[in-house]
Every structure is written in structure tokens, then in C-alpha cells.
């Protein structure tokens, strides 16, 4: 069943301060070789939440989106929260997406987390969001929220190939959007990374004729 949805607005929040990779390397006693490899991969800085939780970061991103769009809270039908790191949640049995709904007065919104595709989770969630829109004609507006915080400085390294940064984003998806329409999505998951701190799912083909990803944190995991 085809359905037309699109991303009508997106916002992000990047915590201060911006930290540089060399300072991080000194503090966490990384080898010169690791730093060189990271710099050669284009990693020079990252954002450090320094004590803020994923909840705070996500709330700041939503606040920014609401400020820019004048979004009426009662019109949000869905809130899907995505994250890469297992710890970017509320301590169980609390629910971070529910806390966001309560805080922003998203009265009608159903809320759950979509995760365990690591960095591909925000794209994977789009597949689920598309299915929700296709199957439920009453759903017109969904909020895709992502946040990640890494409290262990030494664990920011992604096998020396990249660095996990802290950040959050909020993406507003609407039915029959006139801009940034979702054309197609395709995924491949090998499962081989399930025991490693590496992306589980590699997105082989994503066609989004939009600048959506440009507004994501550049160092976002």
C-alpha cells in the first residue's frame, strides 16, 4: 500500500563544549597511531554533553523544533524515539519517550523506542513510521526523536575509525507533505556486529530527496 509522507521540518541540539580529538586522545591515553587514524578519517572534534542525559538533549531538540514550527502539541500522533547506545534511555522501568510526551504535553501521541540498529536506527524507524501511516489513516503527524550520550570517554572510539559524539535531533514527519517526500528505503542487516560496538545495519540504499541528513549532527553516531 503506497502512502505519501515527508519530513517537513527537522531540528537538532548539539551540547557544548566542542572537544578536539587530540585532547580526547591525551585524556584517554590513546596511541598516536589511533589519533592519526582518526584524523585521517576526518575526525577532528566532537560534542560532549558533560553530564546532560539523553532526555535533556532530546528535549532541547524538540524544543527547538516546536519553536521553529509552532507545532501544536495535541496534533502529534506518534513519537518514535531512536538511539544508538543502549544507555541512551531512561533508567528502567521509566520510559524516556513517555517522559518526553508528558513534558511537551503530546496528549494523543503513542510513544515507544525503536533501536538496536545502532546508527541506522533513525532510518530504520522511517520504515516503521511509513508502515504506520500506510495502515492507519487517522495518523497524520509523527515525531522521530533521536539522542545519544556517551558517558565513558574512552569508549567514544568506534574501533579507531570514528568517534561517538553526543547530540540529539527531532524530525517532523507528515502525511502528504509537499517537501522532502520519502521515495524509498532499503536495508541490509548482517547481524555480525551484534557483539561489537559497531553499526549493526549498513544502509545500502537510501533515497531521500531532501536535505534531511544535513541537519543531523555531523558527528552523530
Amino acid at each position, binding site marked *: 500500500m503506497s502512502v505519501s509522507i515527508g519530513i517537513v521540518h527537522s531540528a537538532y541540539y548539539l551540547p557544548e563544549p566542542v572537544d578536539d580529538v587530540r585532547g580526547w586522545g591525551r585524556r584517554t591515553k590513546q596511541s598516536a597511531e589511533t589519533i592519526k587514524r582518526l584524523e585521517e578519517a576526518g575526525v577532528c572534534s566532537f560534542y560532549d554533553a558533560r553530564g546532560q542525559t539523553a532526555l535533556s538533549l532530546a528535549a532541547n531538540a524538540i524544543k527547538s523544533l516546536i519553536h521553529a514550527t509552532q507545532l501544536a502539541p495535541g496534533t502529534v500522533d506518534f513519537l518514535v524515539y531512536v538511539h544508538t547506545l543502549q544507555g541512551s534511555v531512561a533508567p528502567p522501568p521509566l520510559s524516556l519517550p513517555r517522559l518526553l510526551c508528558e513534558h511537551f504535553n503530546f496528549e494523543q501521541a*503513542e510513544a515507544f523506542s525503536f533501536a538496536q*540498529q545502532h546508527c541506522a536506527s533513525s532510518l530504520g524507524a522511517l520504515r516503521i513510521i511509513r*508502515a504506520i501511516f500506510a495502515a492507519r489513516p487517522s495518523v497524520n503527524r509523527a515525531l522521530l526523536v533521536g539522542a545519544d550520550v556517551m*558517558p565513558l570517554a574512552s569508549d567514544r572510539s568506534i574501533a579507531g575509525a570514528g568517534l561517538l559524539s553526543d547530540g540529539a535531533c527531532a524530525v517532523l514527519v507528515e502525511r502528504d507533505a509537499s517537501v522532502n517526500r520519502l521515495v524509498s528505503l532499503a536495508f541490509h542487516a548482517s547481524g555480525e556486529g551484534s557483539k561489537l560496538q559497531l553499526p549493526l545495519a549498513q544502509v545500502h540504499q537510501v533515497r531521500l530527496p531532501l536535505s534531511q541528513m544535513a541537519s543531523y549532527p555531523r558527528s552523530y553516531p
Partner: protein
Amino acid sequence: MNTPVITALASYVPRTVTVHRDCGIEPTHGAPIRSGWHAWVASWQVDYAPHPTKKAAAIRSAAVNAAADEFRCVPVERDTDLSGLAAKVAQTICAARPANAAPIDIAMFCHSSLNEHVSTTTAGRLRAVIGTPCFPFSVSQQQGASTFTALQLASDLLIAEPEINTILIVAAEKWCAPFSRWTDQGIVQGDAAGAILVERFGPASWGLMVIDARAGRLHQLATPAPLSSQDIRTDWVPALRSTIDAILLRHKLQPNDVGTVVGARIDPQLDEAICRHLSRRVIELPSRYRVHLGAAEPIVQLADVLESHDRPVCERILTWGVGLGGFVGCALFESHGRPLVYLNPP
């Protein structure tokens, strides 16, 4: 047809052990696992302090202190971790499928407890267990209601993507330090796993047809809650009544049209209230009250009921559950033959 039908279920509940309320979680045998979770627990203090995990180490809140029993018998898994529990039930269902069965297209993992090690992904392990390309992901932070969301998403996916035919929903919970089994409400969280195989309904299909499934949040507070609100309210009854009524109304059914009701068995008063609402006799179920199996609870309960005796054709089964973080869930099934049921696979 787009209607989902449950053709197989598996559940696993480990042996119970006695857990004292003063002890948030049973001690680990052997060397402590260096999981990395302590850093996250410390980081959560900013927004969630005083953190429930920390609180759990001390005497519980007044609700717990008021509890008459000092001990609770809780299913505790000793031999494997969270992903191991999920893999166990998934493997049971996959191994029993015929070699020429349609491949599993989607794998959903429902949970609220967190893996022993922060970097592992159970969804990835499920992909490995399934053995063929699929789309694995987790549905979480709804606790006992996440399985209902997964059923609803399965239904959505079958409607939205005609090429999808088979979906495996796996739910598991395994609590480990530094987390606590005890909630501030005096409920103890046990370990368990369950799996449901959902297939697109066809002429030769048999099993439990999924008529509807819904999960919802508890009613909104009059004023927006503080960002860090830890309040897990217990007003599940109105939310559950409303969710059940909405499903019955949507399908033009009355409570009497439902044959069997499968509840969460988390709290006698809650069970009683829902039984009364559905105009049926309250059945005394003394075991396991105030012990909750989280996301696995609805599947474990449903598998137990299906195993106990065969259901008449077209009998409707209503299953409801709660998420301790403030969620409720409900699903309505119609029996079209007995699905395969596997209880406590080795």
C-alpha cells in the same frame, strides 16, 4: 489478506528463587561482570536522581514496606544473558519450521531490561539465529506493553508492505546488576522469554488471528510533568478499561463476545477490576502476583492458556497487560486452530 495470524508461540520461564526485598538483585556468582553500566547509572543521576537503581539497594518505598512478605519467589535465569534468553525461544520456533517455510522478513525484539554488556544488540543476535536476511530491531521502553505495540506494528507492516509474509516477535527480560528487580511499587521483575511467529493469513492458515492490538500511555497529567518525573502511576484501571472498550467498540463487540481473558496477573485488584469490567468471574490465581515478567509477560501468559486446553473455533481471546513505566496494552485474537506452542524449551 493482510490479517496477521499467530502460528507458533514459545515461552521460557526459568526456575524461581527466593529474593529478599532488601536485596535489589541476587548476587552474581563468580567474578563480577565489567559491563560498563555503572557509568550510565552515574550519568542518569542528573535527570533521574535519586535513581531507582540506587534506591533499590536500600529498603523500598512505603508501598514496599507495607508489603506483608519479606521474600518473593521470582524466576531468575542463571545460565545465560538477555540475548541468550531471546535466542533460546527464537531458535525453538525457527528449528521447528519446515525447511521450505517462507523466510522470516522482520524480527522485533521487545524488552525493558538492558543487556549485560552495553555494546551488545539482541536484535543482531536474532538476525544471526534466523540465519537469513531480515529486518531486525527492538521495540522498547514500554515494558509489558511493548509486545502489544509489536503486534500492532506487525499488522501495519503486513498492510504496508505486501512482500512481507512472516514476522518473528521475541520478548525477553533478564535483570542484572546494577539494576534492581524491585520497583518502587513493590513489584518484582522476573526473567523470562517468549516468542510469537506472525504470518500473513491465507486459505491454509491456522492459529490465532490477530483481530486488533493496541498499546497506550496512561492518561496525561493535568499539567505537564517535570522533565525528570519518576512518577510511575498506578492508575492502570481507567486506561485499561478505555483501551479494552475501544477495541471492542471498533469491532462492534460486547464483553460477552469474548471467550477467554488473559490478564497480566500483576496485581489482584487490577485483575479483579478488569474481570468486573468484562462481567466475568474473578479466578483466584495465587501464584506470581506482584512478580512481573515485563515484555515477556503477555506471551508467557498466552502460551500457558493455549497449552492448558484447546480453544473452540472462532473463540475470541482478549489479552491485556501493563507497562510499569506507564503503559497499557490489549490484543484481541480469534481462534482458527491451535498454534504450535513450545513451553520451556531446553
